[in-house]
């Protein structure tokens, strides 16, 4: 990394020019079983990419591979450097990773957990840690919970604390596995609004979600995974092919387009079973 200095006005650590992640021919195997790939992927600065796909399609595995967690076949460059040559500490300043089900072992308090996101920057950052932590807690609205023990919070509140920790890490790359699955509507939207702001500041984000509505509304690019490979890709200009999507999910998916909607709405087909016992209104 050429520079790890942070601009106090920006919420993203600046990096060298060029794409944030370049993966070429990346694959992950466990024994003889091919979990994902080989596949190519590029994440550009300012881009919010959503990964969709059925259970077991390899979304989390791809996220793990993009995080540089272990040596995979193929080439992976993070912030312009081959990931296996970066130290763990350098990687921790380049990308933040939110696991699917964040847990914590001891009764740590909310502000302590959010502060853990600052540790990679210990003694290097020009930023005031307390301010960064505070603004991360504001972004997910957990300030009023700051002195609560995390494990005593509701599932959605715990998810907001986990996301705040990722925001506090202030890395140019953010990788999240179903960050909003447990959150209420307001905090789902706030989380993605904040991710959009980070992208506007030059960050790149890859998020796994299951909600087609969130994907359609917030993604710059949607990648649909199936059996370890990227089956189809979509952008606001070139929406997903619902026929292929229905096949991947093995469930009919329709698209609703209307001048009232800012983006096409993807909806799973639902057979109405209610009312067979009741009078029609």
């Amino acid at each position, binding site marked *: 990394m050429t520079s790890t200095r942070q601009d106090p006005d920006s919420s993203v650590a600046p990096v060298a020019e060029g794409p944030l992640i370049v993966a070429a021919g990346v694959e992950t195997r466990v024994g003889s079983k091919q979990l994902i790939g080989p596949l190519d992927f590029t994440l550009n600065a300012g881009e919010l990419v959503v990964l969709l796909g059925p259970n077991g399609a390899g979304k989390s595995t791809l996220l793990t591979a993009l*995080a540089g*967690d272990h040596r995979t076949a193929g080439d992976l460059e993070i912030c312009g450097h081959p990931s296996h040559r970066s*130290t*763990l*500490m350098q*990687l*921790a*300043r380049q*990308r*933040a*990773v939110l*696991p699917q089900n*964040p*847990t*914590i*072992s*001891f*009764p*740590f*308090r909310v*502000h*302590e*957990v*959010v*502060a*853990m*996101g*600052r*540790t*990679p920057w*210990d003694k290097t950052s020009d930023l*005031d*840690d*307390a301010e960064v*932590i505070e603004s991360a807690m504001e972004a997910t609205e957990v300030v009023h919970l*700051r*002195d609560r023990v995390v494990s005593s919070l509701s599932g959605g509140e715990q998810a907001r604390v986990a996301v705040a920790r990722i925001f506090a*890490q202030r890395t140019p790359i953010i990788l999240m596995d179903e960050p909003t699955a447990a959150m209420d509507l307001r905090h789902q939207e706030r989380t993605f609004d904040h991710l959009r702001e980070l992208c506007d500041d030059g960050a790149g984000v890859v998020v796994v979600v299951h909600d087609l509505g969130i994907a359609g509304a917030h993604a710059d690019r949607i990648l649909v995974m199936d059996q370890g490979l990227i089956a189809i890709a979509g952008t606001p200009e070139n929406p997903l092919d619902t026929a292929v999507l229905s096949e991947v999910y093995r469930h009919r998916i329709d698209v609703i387009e209307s001048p009232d909607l800012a983006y096409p709405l993807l909806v799973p087909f639902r057979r109405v079973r209610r009312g067979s016992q009741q009078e029609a209104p």
Partner: protein
Amino acid sequence: MRAARSPKIYGRTAALTTLLLAALLVSIVVAAGTGAFAISPGDVIGSIARRFGVSTDAGRGMADEVLWRIRFPRVALSVVVGASLGCAGAAMQGTFSNPLAEPGIVGVSAGASLGAIIAILTGLTAIGMWALPSAAFIGGLVTVVAVYFGARHDGRTEVVTLVLTGVALNAVVGAVIGLAVFMSDDAELRSITFWTMGSMAQASWPKVAAITPLAIIGVIAAIALGNQLDLLSLGEREARHLGVNVERLRIAMLGVVAVLSAAAAAVSGTILFVGLVIPHLVRMIAGPRHRVLLGLSALAGALVIVLADLVARTIAAPSELPLGVLTSLVGAPFFLWQLHRTRAAQGGWA
């Protein structure tokens, strides 16, 4: 991390530190003065002052003799052993990310005792004063590594596996000790009983001198790695994503646990449950941050062992209750309660 502590927790930590230090000093003076030959707190302090040249008034020869030959080595040993046990417990719980991990329960203390017993039976102790602690250390290290790799799966420690691994290891160690008892003569038998029960009765200045450096190194190393242990609470992958070299941290912490447990076991035998109860109580008051937890657990452990040893040697005077028996009597019900709570929180385990 620096700026984010809330003043409330900070105040409680400072208050607890002060309280523990004061209580430890008072209990040292009281413990040193209590026994068949009673010495007033004033005389105890006077004797210490004279030894360090602060005071020059003539002392009572008999009291000085009792204090410096019998009582002080015993109290000093209690302080060092207690600090080692408390800190080792907190370190092990942090390394395993599990509040039920304790060197005694999972068999590390027993392994250290076994190393010591083998050293006694094979005559290795003749080599020098480091032979016994070294044998205890190797025994402790082998056990802690065995437990670690036996009880971990997919980066987590399951409580059931952990406790059952401990049961198995304690059974193995118990069998070998039984065999050693079967094969040993009377003198060896007495010394083996000492290892299995846990006691401060064999305290001496050379023993204090032998284990104090180990305890100091262990506690300092543990505290130095405390912030990384905090991150490990998030999980192994998450800690790695925050820049922690988990493998290196794990190896270092297992070494620290082995050094501390072995240092304690080498001079006092098997004392169980201190490493379980103490960190839990400290965590309740000062929070789970490991830097604070490790240091305060050492302090609280020292206090508890000084007081427990005082009770052990005075409650049934002139005979002496084994210290290990006393700590187990208090600690085992606490362990059961913790187990119950953990089970309830996890919704039971099949």
